[in-house]
């Protein structure tokens, strides 16, 4: 049985990674699961300098999901390079580094610095709804998507994954722009912008007012977008958005994702990503499927 996939020349032992920002750099969940069993670990977004993130409360539960407005708190690329990359390299798994910035220069700085590092792919977060200056502003305009992709491709030695925002009228337009800019792969979806109000306090639940909606509540939107993009561009897709178990992951794979990322589910069950790996194997065994590629995009 083959579950390994190749994205932009990088071979992953299985099609399961973690969704950026839900798994830190793997240290905490590394106490619960063997990171070597994952196809890859995708790390929390890292910027050129440390970011303190947003005021608290930063998270709120919603029906079948959650809102977060972490605001991309991160220790900055230098600490990340010194501490987190060596930590992850001890495991037999690929490393995908999620990159954030407020300006094009910011993104370029991080990508340039990481280009010499021993990491496998760079995932460019142009879709974070929780920081005003950057993130999503890049991801909601096709021209911007193309331009920034081009700039980063010039600098990166690793293949580049553009991570798309679902808060757009037509996600295929953004996907095409990323493809035109030379992206090697696409990740989708990031969170949907949402809000929760505490009716007893008559106040926003999040200090940031709005946050990013994740979890199983958004899965149908994510599956739809993966399907649309898979049928619009040739790039391989990492699908995510509300994957709680292998069945959910298989929906994304059948819709056209070559890999999947487990996000919010980690918070509910630290073994969620591992369960997805195992559950995909079980499914393939049950139906006698020899190669995961027979499932990728099999529903048309």
């Amino acid at each position, binding site marked *: 049985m083959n579950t390994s996939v190749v994205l932009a020349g990088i071979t992953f032992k299985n099609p399961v990674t973690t969704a950026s920002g839900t798994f830190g750099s793997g240290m905490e969940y590394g106490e619960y699961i063997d990171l070597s069993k994952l196809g890859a670990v995708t790390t929390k977004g890292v910027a050129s300098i440390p970011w303190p993130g947003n005021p608290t409360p930063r998270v709120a539960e919603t029906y079948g999901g959650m809102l977060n407005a972490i605001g991309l708190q991160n*220790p900055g690329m230098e600490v990340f390079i010194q501490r987190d990359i060596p930590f992850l390299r001890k495991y037999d798994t690929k490393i995908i580094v999620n990159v954030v910035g407020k300006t094009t220069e910011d993104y370029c700085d991080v990508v340039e610095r990481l280009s010499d590092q021993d990491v496998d792919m760079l995932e460019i977060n142009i879709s974070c709804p929780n920081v005003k200056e950057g993130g999503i502003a890049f991801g909601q305009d096709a021209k911007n998507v193309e331009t920034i992709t081009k700039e980063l491709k010039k600098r990166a030695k690793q293949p580049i994954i553009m991570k798309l925002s679902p808060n757009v009228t037509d996600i295929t337009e953004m996907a095409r722009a990323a493809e035109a800019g030379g992206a090697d792969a696409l990740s989708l979806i990031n969170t949907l912008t949402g809000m929760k109000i505490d009716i007893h306090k008559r106040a926003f639940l999040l200090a940031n007012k709005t946050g990013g909606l994740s979890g199983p509540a958004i899965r149908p939107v994510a599956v739809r977008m993966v399907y649309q993009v898979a049928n619009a561009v040739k790039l391989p897709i990492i699908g995510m958005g509300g994957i709680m178990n292998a069945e959910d992951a298989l929906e994304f794979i059948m819709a056209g994702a070559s890999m999947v990322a487990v996000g919010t589910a980690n918070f509910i069950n630290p073994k969620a990503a591992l369960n997805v790996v195992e559950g995909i194997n079980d499914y393939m065994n049950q139906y006698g499927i020899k190669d995961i590629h027979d499932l990728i995009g099999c529903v048309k």
Partner: protein
Amino acid sequence: MTVAVKQRVKVANQKRIAEGIYSIWLLAPEIAGAAMPGQFISLYSRDGSRLLPRPISICEIDRIHGRIRLVYRVAGKGTLEFSKLKENDSLEVMGPIGNGFTLEGKKAILIGGGIGIPPMLELAKQLTIPKVMVLGYRDITFLEDEFSAFGDVFVSTEDGSRGTKGNVLDAIRENGIEADIIFACGPTPMLRGIKAYAAEKGIVAQLSLEERMACGVGACLGCVCKSKETDHHTNVKNKRVCKDGPVFYAEEVEL
């Protein structure tokens, strides 16, 4: 520290101890074996529409019978669900989580405010130095009697229906309580007041903070508090309440 696995545990018993306040004993030998005063556990709802864990402090640890006790207020739908659990029902939990209180000092004041009172009980049991307890309530009191086995108990109520009218600091001042260390858990305004009081008196204070959580294990950065110095892990002036706390020294954190 042992790893907090997610596990299904059984309810030994549960009872309502005051209006909206419940006391539950869980059969959880691993947690009981590893837990320290001031740590908490994450409780998961059975209803799939409520995904995130509910953090609840450990109120008592019974290593012999492999049980832990939680005392909690029904604050919303999750705690309402828990309040309906009966003997032999089971629920999923993860714990023990976080860093508890450091047992130190020569003479202590244990301060609990509202639903911050429960974790002080196990601390009162384990802390062998001379100590007094100061418990602040809005109106209805609970757990008060159980503390009296471990030292003098002073109470404040907002409405003055029992003890000092006012807050815990009013009770401390009114009763002229002195100590070289404070252990406290309660609402942020109370902790802010205690931090100022401790600074003024030049004494040490360990404060147990509360923040909204998602992962409960230090991965999501949802539950941070502001720290005075750049934190080793985050490399910014933020510490994670779930992993680095919930107990911090007053000088470590900005409230």
